[in-house]
């Protein structure tokens, strides 16, 4: 008994913010060194457009691109950071909007940059525990809604997007093994601190803080310790990939593609060099979208499928890492 990724689509909101648009707004932030991040433009939702709206659009695109009947879906998995309501789960709301069958289960989680690979693992588990055959897995993020207007760094790096993936039951196992972990002591490296159960909004939540690089944020806004996350990624990702390849009895030479979460090109290039992955096997795919959190891997995957870079029989390593701090990787065969 096993699972296979059989279809991937993604949705990008219409509004494009090019680097020229960005620097027109923040002229002091212009710096040639930023080109190393590999980001040329990013998308933004329109006013009132939610993460679940993008999720719905991504799912409808998947149904249309691959001629999938929504009635054939057994389970809806949703990776989402910005739910519509405190309760009910947004996956239930989405179930209704998409017209999925009553026998279809739903579940969601908010693991950000690690969510895509965790979603694949969860889909596999549901096939074993519930006996489902067709899992619709949607990832979506409008992290930009949490940024302080003057947090230039976050506005530059992140983009809004959603993806939809169909994971189907197969006789041959086409996904696995996995390597994963968590370092909860680093929970505050990537955080929106106030406005939820631990710290309800209060006067201090709105106090603006300027960091040494001129970015302004507050406790109710998204905050990321960029250098801390860089060091975490440089330490954890090479160890994780080494562990994964060992479990899979594979060498780097035997893997066709390495498709990692795309925080930025600079970090991924440093990770690639540290692991020793040849350039032609390593996908950079951030130029047109920025860091779209849990959608970076499926966007890269879909683009590679469309570019006919992935052939039947190919092997790819997928790796997510970030918020939590959390990390997970797996081997996928096509």
């Amino acid at each position, binding site marked *: 008994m096993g699972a296979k990724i059989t279809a991937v689509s993604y949705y990008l909101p219409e509004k494009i913010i090019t680097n020229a648009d960005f620097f027109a707004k923040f002229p002091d932030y212009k*710096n040639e060194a930023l080109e190393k991040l590999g980001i040329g433009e990013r998308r933004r939702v329109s006013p009132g457009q939610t993460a679940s709206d993008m999720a719905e659009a991504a799912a409808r695109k998947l149904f249309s691109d691959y001629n999938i009947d929504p009635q054939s879906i057994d389970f809806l998995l949703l990776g989402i950071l910005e739910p519509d309501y405190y309760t009910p789960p947004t996956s239930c709301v989405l179930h209704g909007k998409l017209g999925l069958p009553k026998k279809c289960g739903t579940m969601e989680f908010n693991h950000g940059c690690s969510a895509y690979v965790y979603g694949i693992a969860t889909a596999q588990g549901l096939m074993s525990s519930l006996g489902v055959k067709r899992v619709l897995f949607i990832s979506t993020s409008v992290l930009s809604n949490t940024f302080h207007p003057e947090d230039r760094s976050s506005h530059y790096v992140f983009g809004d997007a959603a993806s939809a993936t169909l994971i189907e039951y197969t006789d041959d196992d086409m996904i696995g093994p996995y390597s994963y972990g968590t370092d909860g002591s680093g929970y505050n490296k990537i955080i929106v601190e106030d406005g939820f159960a631990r710290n309800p909004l209060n006067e201090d939540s709105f106090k603006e803080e300027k960091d040494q690089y001129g970015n302004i944020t507050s406790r109710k806004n998204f905050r990321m310790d960029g250098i801390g996350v860089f060091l975490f990624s440089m330490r954890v990702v090479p160890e994780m990939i080494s562990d994964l390849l060992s479990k899979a009895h594979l060498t780097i030479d035997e893997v066709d593609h390495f498709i990692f979460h795309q925080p930025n090109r600079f970090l991924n290039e*440093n990770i690639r060099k540290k692991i020793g992955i040849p350039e032609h096997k390593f996908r950079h795919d951030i130029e047109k979208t920025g860091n779209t959190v849990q959608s970076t891997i499926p966007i890269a995957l879909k683009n590679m499928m469309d570019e006919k870079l992935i052939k039947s029989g190919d092997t790819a390593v997928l790796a997510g890492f970030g918020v939590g701090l959390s990390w997970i990787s797996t081997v996928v065969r096509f």
Partner: protein
Amino acid sequence: MDSLGTFITKLESELDTLEKGSLTPTVKYREIPNWSSMFALIIIAFCETEYSVTITGEDLRSCETVTDLYGLVVSRSK
């Protein structure tokens, strides 16, 4: 471990937007024109990949000059 001169040449090459020869032992790197978090990341990545030495954001704040940074890397290199 490289000499201070080689360290500076290599670091200047990583900070490729700097004018050649502008990085000297006494330069206070946080006063480099357009100093940004990107420059900090480039320095940290350089120390990690070139010398297998981990430099944190706190370390960068505790040093002033390029020579201070070199001294820190030397003290941590194996």
